């Protein structure tokens, strides 16, 4: 069974738990949680991840800054990123994807939709 390491970056414990809950349904998944962009970068420097799932509105460092930093780091830039946010307007979606996110999901999330996107990204990665 292939091992899939996910990094969930979200300041809301409720959302972190809900996303982790959904990702645990993927066989061989391991989930690491981060509270904000800085916390995520620390974890990215010490562990390897297959997919990053990040919120946009977070304290200290927001999700868009995180996406931009990951995409500009040669050792991290190939990691797929999924943005999960309450910002559902089309211009927000375009901005997130333009920065280099692979997918954009607006909250409230549906577990099935999230898993579809994650599985699609894992298939493309393989």
């Amino acid at each position, binding site marked *: 069974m292939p091992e899939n390491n996910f990094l969930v970056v979200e300041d*809301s414990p*409720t959302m972190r738990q*809900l996303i982790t*809950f*959904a990702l645990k349904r993927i066989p061989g998944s391991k989930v690491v949680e981060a509270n904000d962009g800085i916390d995520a970068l620390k974890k990215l420097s010490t562990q390897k991840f297959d997919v990053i799932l990040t919120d946009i509105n977070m304290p200290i460092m927001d999700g868009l800054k995180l996406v931009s930093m990951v995409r500009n780091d040669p050792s991290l830039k190939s990691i797929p990123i999924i943005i999960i946010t*309450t910002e*559902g307007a089309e211009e927000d979606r375009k901005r997130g994807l333009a920065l280099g996110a692979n997918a954009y999901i607006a909250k409230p999330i*549906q*577990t099935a939709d999230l898993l579809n996107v994650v599985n699609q990204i894992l298939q493309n990665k393989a």
Partner: protein
Amino acid sequence: MEKESGSLNRKVEEFLHIFKKGEEFTQELLRENEKLRYRVAQLEEMTKSTGREGNIKLNSLEERIALLEEENKSLLERFRQVEEENKDFASRYIEVEAENNNLANLYVASYQLHSTLDFNESLKIILEIVMNLIGAEEFSIMMLDERTNELSVVAQEGMGPEIHDPIKIGDGVIGEVVRAGEAYYREGDPTDLKGVDYAHPLVSIPLKIKEHVIGTIVIYKLLIQKTQFTNVDFELFSMLAGHAATALFSSKLYSQSERKLSTIQSFLDLLKEKQ
């Protein structure tokens, strides 16, 4: 005379020779004829028997085709049934998935609500649930002051300062929800907004401990991508009515008891010092 007799003998011999040859030839023709007749009889017999066998084989093949056609028909029928079952399973799978999603949301919301005894943290968790799981953009949590019978905003998201005025119990939609203890859902499309009307919210959920109302969660506007309330939203509203109320009530009591404990402790320390 002798010469004539010799010539005649030769002619007779020649004739006899020719006659013999003719006889032999005729005999041979008769034999050949016999053989051909026999062969014709054989072939006729063979044709007759082959025709019979052919008929038998044809009948058997026709029976086999009929059987196979029957089998094919029954397989097609079975295939159709399996396809129906498959469709049924697929739709049930979607239902189970949706139910699973709903249960996960309810579990996480309930788990988080009871994960703290800090009043402000409880408020923050309720705001997170209403924003992230329900998809509200402008909403508030109002608590009832039992001494003044007034509702005041204790936490809010995305709202202007004008909604901070207290509301008397029984006044307007929100006051009535708290008085009656019944949830209010505005009729019509929740996204059909001509500006937010703070006097007529989309939803007002009474926070109840048994029949005792301690406040309300009021939603005025949904996120742009949230077009309608789903079943899980109503489940969440119902869950919030009870669980958010107990979480807020118990955390409030806990902070009050902590404060009292600290006061008593200071008092005891003072007494000890005097002794």
